[in-house]
């Protein structure tokens, strides 16, 4: 079989196809994609730096106007999503425990239940799921709100009144989303760890609560807490910057808002996954 497959790949038609020059249209297509990607990265980077600059430079400017907005956005991206996150934490505990308990019991490795919960829930699924849920519930709404405001000329109205649109519209969302994502991640992970034990208990796993939490404590390190905090804050910051960038940073017509929303959501997902991969590398390198 192996010889046959090698022969078929080494056939004259295949060799002919492999030696053909790449069609120019394909090169152009890939070039355009790459160019657009680089422009987007440049735009996002510049927007993120501008936002950070405004946060620090105007920290004390118009506090009576901007800080209530920050609290509003924190409540919107955090507190109001709590019921959803409690439901998701219960589900996450069920999913992870339900899948692993039977296998761990079979191989006699039930003592690793806590370690698996730390590796899967605390380090990976918890932060990533938090980011994706915040993106779905608040990030998409951000693009629509800001894109509509942009299309209706509200941003120009702010500028005409001498109000910095980044300070008034973006800063509260960035701080609120970072703080909200961080808080929700804490609740999601705690909920998943507790519900995980409850599901294990219901499956008659011979594991006492004290032993389960001892396993969790042993598997956790100081680095985990630091990485979790940094990861979710950066996730929240990135989602807010990407969604605000697509809603605000370029002139939009009303009919373009839906496309901007799709672009922002896709780029946010990619950015979160890439960032998550970066954190995995840091974990592996430690």
């Amino acid at each position, binding site marked *: 079989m192996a010889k046959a497959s090698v022969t078929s790949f080494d056939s004259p038609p295949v060799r002919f196809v492999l030696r053909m020059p790449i069609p120019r249209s394909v090169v152009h297509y890939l070039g355009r994609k790459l160019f657009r990607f680089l422009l987007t990265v440049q735009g996002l980077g510049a927007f993120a730096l501008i936002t950070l600059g405004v946060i620090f430079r105007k920290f004390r400017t118009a506090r*009576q106007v901007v800080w209530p907005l920050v609290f509003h956005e924190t409540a919107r991206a955090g507190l109001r999503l709590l019921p959803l996150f409690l439901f998701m934490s219960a589900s996450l505990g069920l999913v992870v425990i339900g899948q692993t308990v039977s296998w761990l019991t079979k191989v006699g490795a039930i003592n690793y239940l806590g370690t698996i919960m730390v590796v899967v829930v605390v380090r990976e699924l918890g932060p990533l799921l938090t980011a994706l849920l915040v993106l779905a519930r608040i990030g998409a709404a951000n693009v629509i709100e800001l894109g509509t405001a942009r299309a209706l000329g509200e941003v*120009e109205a702010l500028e005409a009144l001498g109000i910095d649109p980044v300070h008034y519209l973006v800063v509260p969302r960035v701080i609120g989303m970072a703080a909200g994502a961080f808080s929700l991640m804490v609740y999601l992970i705690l909920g998943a760890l507790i519900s995980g034990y409850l599901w294990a208990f219901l499956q008659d796993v011979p594991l006492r609560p004290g032993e389960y939490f001892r396993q969790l404590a042993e598997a956790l390190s100081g680095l985990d807490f630091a990485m979790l905090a940094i990861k979710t804050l950066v996730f929240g910051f990135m989602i807010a910057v990407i969604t605000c960038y697509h809603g605000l940073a370029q002139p939009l017509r009303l009919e373009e808002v839906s496309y901007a929303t799709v672009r922002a959501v896709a780029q946010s997902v990619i950015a979160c996954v890439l960032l998550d991969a970066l954190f995995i590398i840091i974990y592996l390198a430690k």
Partner: protein
Amino acid sequence: MAGITTIAKSETGVTSPPAIIEMREVASGSMRDLNTVGVEGVNWTVAAHDYWVIGGLQGSGKSDFLAMTGGLMPPLRGEYRLFGEKMPIFDEARLPTRLRMGLVFETGQLFNHLTIRENVGLPFRYHKNLSKAAVFDRVSTFLEALELGPFADSTPGALALNWQKRAALARALILEPDLLLLDSPVFGLDLRQLNWWLGFMDELWRGHKLLARPVTLVVTTADLRPWRGRAHQFAILRERKLSVLGTWQQVEAASSELVSELLTIEQKR
């Protein structure tokens, strides 16, 4: 700043009011595309206590020109000074100069997520760092003066366009500007609203009790007729040029086909 603090003296010794807007060979772009020339070669001076009306057909670039004058985009070419300061002003240090100018958009462009009261109070709160409660009385005064009291707690989407425009006017006035730019303020209004706007602008120009001092006005329009006997200086935008016509008598005497159109005089065929 010399332009605003001193009264200029001409060679004949007659004092003239200080220039508020000075444009020399200015070209303005478009809000959709900053590099597309909308109007060019503009040489225009607005003095304190002037009342200008700029006429032009729809699509002639009035809104973009006013947006450039309002500092929303830089001039493509030429020199533009506002109260003696070079425009555009984007830096914080010179912001107070820019805030001496108010801009009212054609459709109001209110913030849809805020109520009318919040819309009107926002610029004052932002620049003075005040809470909603602290500006309540001041905002109420402006709302009452513009007959917006009954709509104070409504959002813009619940209001007709004419009331939205009034709210936008109140929002611009709350910062007590010396110069007010109004983009087609009477477009699409019924006669009652039209008369209210014309009367209110007259009061602003003379010195409304809200501000206690006269306001310099620059208004754009697609119909010159309502401004007869009200505005003092007229100009038109045509073929990407700003042509200063002068007083109403000079407008009526102008033989331009466009002026006739803006006066809605039936053309001889």
